[in-house]
């Protein structure tokens, strides 16, 4: 009984690991964003950096390496995620996050251009590994609020929080 389970899990893990198709991304029109007009280039850069942040997050949580968050996260978001990774490492847990779909909407661009807020309805799979053994795999659909702020070379996620649907 155990053997088929292990095989299925392994297959799933392999598919999970290898199946790194880029997530489907849909972006809502941004006509109503305010109070600062959002230029197309800025919007593109913000969305690119936000999606990259998911990839960085995924690697950091899978390898329990908080330093992988550095390029994409800053401030409170980075601190919280890094703390979670430390908790994972302490308890011998790793988690695999694979985002498969994003439905993005830019909802706020602050007047001085120093913050931009996104709402992301995201679908992702989470796999929990304890002592490198897969405990469960779950598909999640959640709504995230993210605030990004500009840094020297790119936008970084400063607030990253799921909200109840």
């Amino acid at each position, binding site marked *: 009984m155990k053997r088929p389970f292990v095989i299925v899990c392994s297959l799933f893990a392999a598919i999970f690991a290898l199946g790194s198709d880029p997530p489907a991304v849909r972006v809502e029109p941004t006509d109503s964003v305010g*109070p600062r007009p959002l230029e197309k280039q800025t919007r593109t850069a913000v969305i690119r950096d936000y999606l990259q942040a998911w990839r960085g*997050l995924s690697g950091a*949580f899978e390898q329990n390496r908080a330093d992988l968050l550095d390029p994409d996260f800053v401030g*409170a978001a980075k*601190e*919280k*995620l890094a*703390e*979670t990774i430390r*908790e*994972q490492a302490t*308890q011998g*847990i790793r*988690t695999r*996050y694979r985002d498969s779909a994003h439905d993005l909407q830019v*909802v*706020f661009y*602050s*007047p*001085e251009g*120093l*913050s931009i*807020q996104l*709402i992301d309805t995201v679908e992702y799979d*989470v796999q*929990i590994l*304890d002592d490198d053994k897969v*405990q*469960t795999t*779950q598909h*999640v659909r*959640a709504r995230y*609020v993210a*605030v990004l702020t500009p840094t020297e070379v790119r936008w970084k996620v400063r*607030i*990253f*929080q*799921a*909200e*109840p649907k």
Partner: protein
Amino acid sequence: MRSRFTFLLGALVITAMPLALAQTGSLHLPGTVEAGSAFSIQSTGNGNAVLYIVGLGQVVKRKVQLGQTVSFAPGDLRSAGHYLAVLVGDSSTENGAFDVTAAHQPGALSFLAKPSRLAVDLHDGISGVVYVFDAFQNLVLATTQVSFQLSGVAGATQTRTALTHNGVAWTKMDSAAKEGSVQFVARVGDAASTRVMQLVPGNPCHLRMSARPSGQRLAVETEPVRDCNGNALPDGTIVTFTERYKGGESTVDVPLKRGVARTDMPAYGGAKISVATGVFVGNEIRWGGER
């Protein structure tokens, strides 16, 4: 022999029954939990299991006894977000999910007030953006009223209120007509954040100079340079004196010191001397008595 075997089988079944029962269990999860508050998770069944509470904001792993209530003390789960709860027994796994929401009571504000320095008398020149957080640095997504107040030595107090939307509220204010420091305060309940801004003189509006002989040369000096609201331009502001005379020109960029700019220029009869600062041009003097 046969009865002995039947007894043994029966004993085995009886012994194995509780164990078999212990392999099955279920989770009773709260729908939402406020960050930092106490809550509990009820499991059913018998035996030992491991409970995982996994989210991007926090991870908890506990050994639990099935059938007992697992309690979480206040502060145990303090990061808002979506959490998976997984109960892993010896041969079965139960899953569930719940949300942790930010506390309703605002605990801290991130107040982005720009700019820190601006010219006087500018309409909507000041912007303030507030992100409202609870005590655990979770963004308070529930609508909240924020009040903004701009006050200081330089003019009447301006007040605005705004409601947060997705945790953020913003406003714009005018700068006062008089230079000096102003305080810009954002307040939500008991939480407040203050920024200091400097209002500086605007573009020059009054630029006049005079000239007098100084030995072989000509001493030129401005009156105190002011903007259109009567604020004196700060020291260090560059004033350009240009003297045009027959076939030649002399220029010198002089900083204001104690409100005035002064320098010496060559004394040529009939020379025209003009003064400017930035793109603003002041008066012109023709040396030789004519003005």
